[in-house]
């Protein structure tokens, strides 16, 4: 009955590519963090593709910040891609781009990560 938040993850060299679909809230945020934690020892860059996520709340953002902090400790980086303009503005106001980057597409993000 409730549409499930979906996440797919792929590891490309030392980059984890996460593709989400659905509301990034408590559930979605936790799944993103879990996906990162499960691969954190073998990657140092995360590309988060939000093409199919058009809504995010502050709880979801807090999980993303936690992932950024964990990445920061190992000098890793996070790159957002395919951002909805509203989410982009929210991330800007929340200050996420002080610690993470953004790119238009996954391909651009992968070029940035190298």
């Amino acid at each position, binding site marked *: *009955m*409730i*549409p499930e938040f979906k996440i797919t993850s792929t590891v490309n060299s030392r980059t984890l590519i996460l593709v989400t679909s*659905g*509301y990034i*809230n*408590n559930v979605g945020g936790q799944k993103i963090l879990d996906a990162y934690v499960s691969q954190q020892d073998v990657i140092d860059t995360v590309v988060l593709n939000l093409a199919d996520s*058009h*809504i*995010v*709340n*502050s*709880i979801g953002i*807090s999980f993303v*910040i936690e992932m950024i*902090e964990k990445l920061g*400790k190992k000098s890793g980086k996070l790159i957002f891609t395919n951002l909805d303009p*509203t989410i982009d*503005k*929210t991330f800007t*106001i*929340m*200050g996420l781009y002080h610690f993470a980057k953004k790119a238009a597409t996954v391909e651009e993000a992968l070029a940035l990560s190298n």
Partner: protein
Amino acid sequence: MENESFSQSIDKLKFQVKSFQEGFSLLVQSGDLQELGRNFHHLLRGNFLVTDFCLFHKNGEAWRRVYGSTFEETDVTTWLKPSDQFVFESVSGQKTRLAITLPLIDQTHFGLLIGQKLDRSDFGETDTIALHIFLQQLDNAYQFFISQKKEKQFSFDLNHRVVQLNSLIDTGIELSKLNNNSTLFETSVERVVSITNASFGVLQIMEKGNLLREYSIPEGVPGEFILKSDNLIQSEIEFQSKTYLFTLADKESRAGAVPFEATDELLLGAFARQVLTALENEAHHEESIEIEALKRELSVAADIQKKIIPTKLPDIAGYELAGLNIPSKEVGGDYYDCFPLGDGRFALIMADVAGKGVPAALLVSTLNASLSAYMSMNMPLKDLAGKLNSIIYKASPADKFITCLIAVLEPETGKLAFVNAGHNPGFVLRTDGSMEKIDAGGIPLGMLNMGLPFDSAEIVIQPGEKLLLYTDGIPEAMNEVEEEYTDEKFEQFFQTHSHPSPEKFISDLLEDVKLYTGSAPQSDDITVLYLGRN
């Protein structure tokens, strides 16, 4: 020997002083409690050659392992005391040598279990003093950690408030854009769900208790399901007999579901009002488009009418003729004309279409064309009326018809044949001051097409006599208190007023009507055709 021992003690103290300085800067770099535990372990290892160490944290009843795996749960229950005081205890456990309970600034506690030193020596007095200093540093680092956490949370909350305000403003701007009905509702629900941290939201549009449509976030979740939540807030607006009910359910936090706050209710109310404003703006916009379309339609109708209403009446030898049409709006439904029939006779027409605007103008145009076509055929007027009735009936919608008075004047004899299709009667003012009505005829043209017969009649206008044809805009002209000018007043004016010329008479008549109506707006078209035989 004593000097050597003294020198070693001095070196050790120097090393520890340096460790104290480096220790604090190491501890405050910790990003979380686990890291704090790890860093503290480094200090213990470096200063006391201790490898066995575990850090626990207690917030409430139970101790939670934060760092280290050396000690078992039984060690925790055996050695860590449920005390609110600082406890520094030397113990003789299998592994445990020191058990410490450290009260913290936020009413929580650290529990530290420390094993024996690598050289198996006891913790001496100097060690104990140094450990106390390190514990003080651990306490300070924890305070710094809490303070940083609070600062981060404060900054996060502040930014979240900015996001809320920004979203409210942005959404207001987006919703105020016209022609966005397709996204208006989805956008408003999506935004308010997002900024209030609700798990679900739905907008239900209802009319007389029946659900017409609903928009939910996440998409596809039935409103019925959302409404079952015991943690929800609602806001409702009414517009054009429809109810718009916004519902938010299950506010989230990192710790799980929490009750909605007063701010959430304010935000939900603000979003609902923004939707109401957008709906009102949309309605006003549509209304103004309709008005513009109507204006254009009236302009087209005015052009049609201008071409039909005569700008100049023909000269009829031995007669004076004048006519006037003043529409009440941009385009009226009145029509008059006078034109020669080619055999020395003249047709005089006075008509009034039910309604105004383009439909009325088109009907007048049809009548005008039909008259032009059939009048020259010299058919009897009652047959002509029957023919016109059939044409107008077919050309007009059900609620449209024309009242019409058609007369044919034979100027030399003064003979006037006429048929009155449901129009106001014409008047002939005789030389003896009496008035005669001309009203023989039938039903208005186009009202029914059942073959009902029309009657026609003939009178003679003698020298010095006048004929007046008009529409109901004169007798039914209303004053400020909506009282009509009346047929009686009109007939009396025609009968008693001087008739210096047709133009002057019409001008005086209009002045009298205007005097009566005062500041009241003209309620209907005014049309007059005056024929006087010299």
